[in-house]
């Protein structure tokens, strides 16, 4: 039996006074064997990223520090190392891959320089040898043109390629242990699958141990050998991936897995007879080439090309696609937050795009939005009741009545009426998104346009918010235009979906049909990229999360 690469035992990380709990991690025991991928799963705030920080000895000390336990790397006690020794280990023996490829690379240095830095720090190779080594590594992570990537600045390569660069940087010196902190969360599904495959391949070649931190059970199903589930700093369950995924024991794991949307679309609703509430025809939007004599030129970008769709009463239409496909632009045009170049959007037979400012204001009542980031879309200086009542007051509802309505709406979205007088920052992400929904509902709209409303939420919260949206839709007979990049979410909620690529609809139809029998190659690619698509979450009966 070989020695484990990483052996964490009894690890306890103390949080500063005044935090929500005294210890971020309590009695964590975890081992990573060579050639093994161990997934550390948990929701936000479970302490999973801090455990990575502890291994690297990069905790924000002294506020957050290791209070007890040991971390052994190849049998050596990491906690006993001097800062100097630790610096030698970092990057050479233990490497890290971070979540945000956008921000994890220094914007002012070329990709090559940043790879070179690792070699300069840890080897005595000459300049030419270092360059050859870096280029070789860039090739191994399958960058299309390693030479040009070597000389490029991070902003000049795409997000997926940047993550490849990060991986190349981590693997340069063949470390024994790689810590990957949500390495694919910020990527599109197709890119995510490529990166996961790449990590898998290279890890097999190098026989490195990987501690893979994620919140996504789809990713776990795709890549993990072993799974450890964290909840509020406590390890609630661990074991081989198959066992944990298909036969979870702990109620929390069961709840988490139960919340993963299965790739089974809802039964088709008989909607063909329902009246059309929203009809878009020939929408076009080009972000124009700017400039001329007195300023610089920018290339024109066609965000939406000749788009038409209809939305019937009580229906949920999903708009899916990867970043840059134009799906957000569609949601902005439909609500006329963005002026469109040509086309019509009819709400109840009136063209909202041709409406005068006065008419538009009246029409805004019928079509409301729920935004992605519940942190950023609520004014932090206003009380919840004012946030919700604002719209109706602007439209002439007496203040008292609007406030009373707001309180009723809070109940409708399953928040306590006492929430009314509090400020947005006092709520969790899921609760904030409920407030966002209540705000949209306060205008009694016919249509709600939701732009990635659950993307920023943990999976269990996500499930609750989706359920709420579905319930409200049925109860109030709302129509939903639901923009998302997450096909699992789309499968769960949408009656029909349109798949967008480069500003065009490549496929549309009933969700069940599209999922069962995708016609367009792009749709097929998207569907086959869903992480863990071969794994159907077991149907679990739990007594609520």
């Amino acid at each position, binding site marked *: 039996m070989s020695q484990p690469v990483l052996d964490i035992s009894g690890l306890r990380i103390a949080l500063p006074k005044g935090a929500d709990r005294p210890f971020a991690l309590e009695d964590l025991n975890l081992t990573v064997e060579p050639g093994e991928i161990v997934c550390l799963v948990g929701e936000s705030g479970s302490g999973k990223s801090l455990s990575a920080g502890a291994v*690297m000895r*990069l905790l924000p000390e002294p506020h957050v520090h290791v209070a007890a336990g040991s971390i052994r790397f190849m049998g050596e006690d990491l906690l006993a190392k001097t800062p100097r020794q630790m*610096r*030698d*280990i*970092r*990057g*050479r023996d233990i*490497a*890290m891959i*971070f979540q*945000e490829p956008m*921000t*994890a*690379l*220094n*914007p*002012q*240095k070329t990709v090559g320089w940043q790879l070179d*830095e*690792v070699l300069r*720090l*840890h080897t005595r190779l000459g300049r030419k040898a270092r360059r050859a080594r870096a280029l070789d590594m860039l090739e191994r992570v399958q960058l299309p043109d390693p030479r040009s990537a070597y000389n490029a*600045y991070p*902003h000049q390569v795409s997000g997926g390629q940047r993550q490849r660069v*990060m991986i190349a*940087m981590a693997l340069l010196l063949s470390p024994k242990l790689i810590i990957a902190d949500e390495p694919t969360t910020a990527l599109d599904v197709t890119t995510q699958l490529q990166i996961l495959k790449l990590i898998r391949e290279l890890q097999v070649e190098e026989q490195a141990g990987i501690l893979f931190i994620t919140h996504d059970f789809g990713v776990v199903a795709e890549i993990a050998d072993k799974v450890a589930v964290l909840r509020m700093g406590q390890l609630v369950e661990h074991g081989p991936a198959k066992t944990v995924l298909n036969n979870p024991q702990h109620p929390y794991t069961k709840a988490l897995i139960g919340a993963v949307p299965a790739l089974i679309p809802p039964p088709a609703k008989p909607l063909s007879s329902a009246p059309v509430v929203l009809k878009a025809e020939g929408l076009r939007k080009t972000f124009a080439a700017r*400039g001329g*004599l*007195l*300023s*610089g*030129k*920018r290339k024109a970008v066609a965000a939406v090309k000749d788009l038409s769709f209809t939305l019937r009463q009580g229906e949920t239409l999903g708009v899916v696609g990867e970043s840059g496909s134009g799906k957000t632009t569609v949601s902005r045009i439909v609500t006329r937050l963005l002026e469109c170049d040509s086309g019509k959007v009819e709400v109840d037979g009136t063209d909202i795009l041709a409406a005068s400012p006065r008419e538009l204001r009246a029409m805004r009542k019928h079509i409301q939005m729920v935004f992605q980031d519940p942190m950023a879309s609520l004014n932090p200086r206003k009380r919840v009741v004012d946030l919700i009542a604002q719209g109706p007051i602007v439209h002439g509802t007496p203040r008292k009545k609007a406030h009373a309505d707001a309180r009723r709406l809070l109940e409708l979205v399953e928040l306590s009426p006492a929430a009314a007088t509090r400020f947005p920052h006092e709520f969790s992400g899921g609760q904030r998104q409920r407030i966002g929904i209540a705000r949209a509902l306060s205008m009694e709209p016919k249509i709600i346009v939701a732009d990635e409303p659950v993307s920023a939420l943990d999976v269990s919260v996500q499930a609750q918010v989706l359920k709420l949206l579905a319930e409200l839709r049925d109860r109030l007979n709302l129509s939903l235009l639901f923009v998302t990049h997450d096909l699992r979410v789309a499968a769960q909620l949408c009656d029909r979906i349109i798949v967008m690529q480069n500003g065009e609809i490549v496929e549309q139809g009933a969700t069940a049909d599209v999922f069962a029998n995708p016609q367009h190659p792009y749709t097929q690619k998207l569907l086959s990229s869903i992480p863990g698509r071969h794994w159907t979450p077991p149907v679990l009966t739990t007594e609520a999360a």
Partner: protein
Amino acid sequence: MKPAFPPVLGYALRRLLQAVPVVLLIMVGTFLLLKLAPGDTVDALVGDMGGADAAYIERMRAEYGLDQPVYVQLLTYMGKLITFDLGWSFVYEQPVSAILFERLGVTLLLMATSLTLAFSIGILLGAIAARRVYSLTDNVISTLGLIFYATPSFFLSLLMIYLFSVKLGWLPVGGIKTVAGFYTGWDHYVDVALHLVMPTAALSLIYLSFYLRLMRASVLEVADLDYVRTAKAKGAGETRLMVHHIMRNALLPVVTLLGLQFSTVLGGSVVVETIFTLPGLGQLASQSVVQRDMNTLMGIIFLCSIIVVVVNFLTDLLYARLDSRIELA
């Protein structure tokens, strides 16, 4: 379609074209504003002479063209300005351009040294304070910065004159050189440098505090960013982190401020030049206002607006050099 000349030249040309209407607008605006002020050159000159009869005053006005309607005066002035003719100063009895060039050197020297000092010492102290945040060092640096920030420059100047010139007698009270010294060669430079110590200190200490505070905040912010964490995870040491990963990124907002301040230092130098009786543009400006020397004043403003435009352009170039994400366009 590849331009036949380097893109920077094309950019410079475009900026030059953009600058022309800006400068013209400034000139027209100031001209009209100055005309709104009560009194004119003749009033000031006559006041100096101790009075004159009405016919004489009328004749002087006609001679200087001040009897014309304002728009005619404006058109005449702008017409000359387009050929870079800044006119004649009736107070100094010299062409305005000659006076300006005589005075520009002192102000530029004062500005350049104060800003260079303020900038380099400011970012250095700011970076040190940020790396030892909330320690004694940080507290001392930040408190000193706050004190300089809060002290008006005239007060600081007077305090220094009292201490170094009156009490200790180390430094000259004012002027740019010892009047009866007639130094040549190195002695001249040393003499000028000694005269500039206090004005430079007075100007730079205040600006220093801006840079210090901004740099401290900027370094603190950058030090928390993901790529600094990446560098740490690579095993980079403290010095390396600071030099390669933090400083360069933290400098960007400070450079913006440098560009902005270069234009306001001219305003600040009015006070300092007046107190230390330095023959610079600032002093000239304040005297010209008192004497209603329109042409000189307009000349100073013309020169300043050109300096501001040029400095802005240079700042943008520097910014593009420092931040690889920015392309000149």
